[in-house]
């Protein structure tokens, strides 16, 4: 598909991306609105950002959210990578259909179903709801995304490299850590970031599976948002967007830097 852009293409691309980004841009702009009313522009002001810092509940929730996201993303990356290895390398085995079903289903499953079912599990085993139940829940549904990302990298992987490693005396365990993992690392890292942001952003599953003392930021935002649009929420949202954007940009810069370093060596 290299024929070049027709007018139709250009117009559809512009409209599509404008549609996608307009609400976000408006949100950011209005977070600097001095006036409380959305309709009226009262001048540029950062007072809402200052107010966020005073809001203890909000900050608490942000801290909880970050911790949950970090732990669940790490666990999900490990489990998701193992799942991807199984799907790509294991070939046919008993229960493979069930396994791939379990890995792919959460990708499309409505979150209310996932949330409800996990909560019922926690209740049935009498596990107190709180930080750990949310983390377990987030790990479960984000590991599937990690699996899909890592899987696509594993498919094109040159297996003769692993054979070479084993031929030179490395056990399968060592081969994985010295050869395979370094080479699939970008996909694993992308998976981690994906799991992190999915967890950061999740409202429904967290609402079902959390407990006292572990209210997440999306939950706080949601409870305020139900009452209507407020500029503090605009400010929080902007901070949130900025945070995630920086994370993603930092990650791509890190990759570029690493590549440049490789070229410079020797």
């Amino acid at each position: 598909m290299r024929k070049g852009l027709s007018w139709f293409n250009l117009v559809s691309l512009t409209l599509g991306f404008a549609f996608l980004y307009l609400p976000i841009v408006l949100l950011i702009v209005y977070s600097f609105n001095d006036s409380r009313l959305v309709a009226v522009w009262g001048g540029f002001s950062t007072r809402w950002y200052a107010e966020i810092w005073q809001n203890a509940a909000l900050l608490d929730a942000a801290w909880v959210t970050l911790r949950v996201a970090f732990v669940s993303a790490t666990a999900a990356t490990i489990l998701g990578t193992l799942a991807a290895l199984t799907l790509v390398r294991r070939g046919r085995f008993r229960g493979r259909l069930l396994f791939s079903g379990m890995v792919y289903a959460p990708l499309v499953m409505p979150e209310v179903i996932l949330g409800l079912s996990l909560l019922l599990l926690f209740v049935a085993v009498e596990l107190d709801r709180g930080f750990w139940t949310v983390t377990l829940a987030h790990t479960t549904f984000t590991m599937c995304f990690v699996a899909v990302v890592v899987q696509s990298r594993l498919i094109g992987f040159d297996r003769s490299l692993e054979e070479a490693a084993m031929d030179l005396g490395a056990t399968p365990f060592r081969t994985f850590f010295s050869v395979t993992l370094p080479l699939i690392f970008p996909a694993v890292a992308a998976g981690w970031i994906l799991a992190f942001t999915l967890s950061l952003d999740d409202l429904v599953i967290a609402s079902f599976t959390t407990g006292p003392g572990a209210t997440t930021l999306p939950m706080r935002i949601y409870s305020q948002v139900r009452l209507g649009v407020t500029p503090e929420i605009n400010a929080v949202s902007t901070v949130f967007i900025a945070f995630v954007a920086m994370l993603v940009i930092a990650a791509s810069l890190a990759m570029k830097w690493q590549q440049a370093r490789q070229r410079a060596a020797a």
Partner: protein
Amino acid sequence: MADGHKRPHPIVAAMPYLWLAAFFLVPFVIVFRLSLSDDVLAQPPYAPLFEWSAGWSGVREFFAGLDFENYAFVLTDSLYIEAYWQSIWIAAVSTAILMLIGFPVAYGMARAPQGWRPILLMLIILPFWTSFLIRVYAWMGILTREGLLNQALLAIGLIDEPLDILATNAAVILGIVYSYLPFMVLPLYAALERQDDTLLEAAADLGAPPWKSFWLVTFPLALPGLVAGSLLCFIPAVGEFVIPDLLGGSDTLMIGRTLWTEFFTNRSWSVASTIAVLLLLILVVPIALYQNIQSRSLERN
């Protein structure tokens, strides 16, 4: 197994398998069991409870206490049935609109010069990284009576009175289309990008005008991407909660919201479970279809 070094050690499969079995499969069993139970004012708010200590008669009592009462309740109540229908309807309309918007965008991306593509890809994915909740919330601000949409339309002179868009099904559809756009564009883009230019050249060489080559060559080959994207949008959209809750009105009946209300507001866990089971039954065919596509594309590679 002499070739054991080729396949990963069983523990590689065992860990995720056990985890998913425990945290994905078992919960569904519990949901089903709960859908057969009754709501009680207790902790936990359902009965009968499975008592290990009660022995065999306890087991029998347990199974005797289960019934399909909730199913009868839900399936005969027009409100619930209406909710299921509306959910499917809204999800279907949204998916159709997503196809209409998503295809030109994906097509444009696929035909863009090589240098643009990573940037375009990043631009499509970036909103996905930012919060779902926040993006829906952003629309709230735009769609209110005093919001920007009305301001703009009034300014142009298209309308005299501000439109009541918020708290309608239309707003919900708009919200779904907006939020799920990356999910439609990405699989479509992947399918279109993979296509060989030479196919179109061959078609042109054989005398087909551009629109015909599109319909007879490009579109059919992009179909798998279209199907994948549609399923990726339709299935979760049916059970959506956040969008109908924030952008919909009191007469917007979507099943995800109904489930939430049953659970959190009415504290009716068993009915919520019943709703979940029925929703799953409705979605089981599209879900299986999606998994089939995924597994087959894995095998093909």
